């Protein structure tokens, strides 16, 4: 990570010098105070205050997520390609290679754990709110299609029989998909009940 150390009379002054030198703006950097000798009390006008800052360029979250993901894949002994594409609010990392089953885990358990940890890691010291979505061999896309089919067929049955049905527990991301699909479906409403990780969707007839 690129960084500079600057000594100046005030924090503002030091930061300004550093930003000019790095040629970036304030949102792209991390600032640490290394030394500070503040002038205190009544005699302050006699002292000269001094501050030393270290200003480093923050890694952008896409770079960080990709780097972490690659590191983990190497650790798992999986050779694979990582493909990045962005859409508003999301950064998708698609992995393709050998041993994708191991990366995905049963019902996507490993893939979800990995995605969760990488999201925590990249958002820890960065305000960027884009979510990282990790997919392996198109697993999430296929899952989405399956969920869509499931949601529609159950909604159909609920409407026909006029009786509510409870789906099996799903992670938040999958529940969101089901809610979205059935949002515009007339005759049924959806809501969730229970606590994570056993929170489930209920599809119920309207009125």
């Amino acid at each position, binding site marked *: 990570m690129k960084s500079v150390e600057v000594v100046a009379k005030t924090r503002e002054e030091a930061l300004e010098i550093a930003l000019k030198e790095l040629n970036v703006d304030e949102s792209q950097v991390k600032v640490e105070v290394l030394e500070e000798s503040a002038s205190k009390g009544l005699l302050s006008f006699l002292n000269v205050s001094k501050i030393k800052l270290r200003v480093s360029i923050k890694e952008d979250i896409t770079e960080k997520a990709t780097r*972490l993901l690659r*590191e*983990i894949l190497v*650790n*798992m002994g999986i050779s694979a390609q990582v493909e990045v594409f962005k859409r508003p609010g999301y950064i998708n990392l698609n992995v393709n290679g050998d041993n994708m089953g*191991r*990366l995905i*885990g049963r019902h996507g*358990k*490993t893939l*979800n*754990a*990995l995605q*969760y*940890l*990488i999201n*925590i*890691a990249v958002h*820890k*010291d960065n305000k960027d709110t884009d979510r990282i979505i990790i997919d392996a061999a198109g697993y999430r896309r296929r899952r989405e299609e399956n969920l869509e089919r499931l949601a529609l067929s159950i909604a159909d049955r609920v409407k026909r029989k006029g009786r509510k049905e409870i789906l099996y527990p799903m992670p938040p991301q999958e529940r969101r998909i089901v809610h979205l699909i059935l949002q515009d479906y007339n005759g049924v409403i959806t809501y969730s009940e229970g606590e*994570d990780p056993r929170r489930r969707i209920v599809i119920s007839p309207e009125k």
Partner: protein
Amino acid sequence: MLVKSIVDHEDEVQVREEESDGALLVEISVHEDDIGRIIGKRGRVIKAIRTLVWATAPPEQRVLVELAE
């Protein structure tokens, strides 16, 4: 097992591995202030770490992941 270092802001992360009864014990120790962070809400983070460690280890290898006090 470098995986752990991704979660913490401190450099005070230590990972110790030990063989016991045919299982591999992985002991993680972190800075006091990071303990909450590594456990997560209702243990969500530590569970995710375990899941990932199990997936990394060979299938026949039993692995226990513990947090040092």
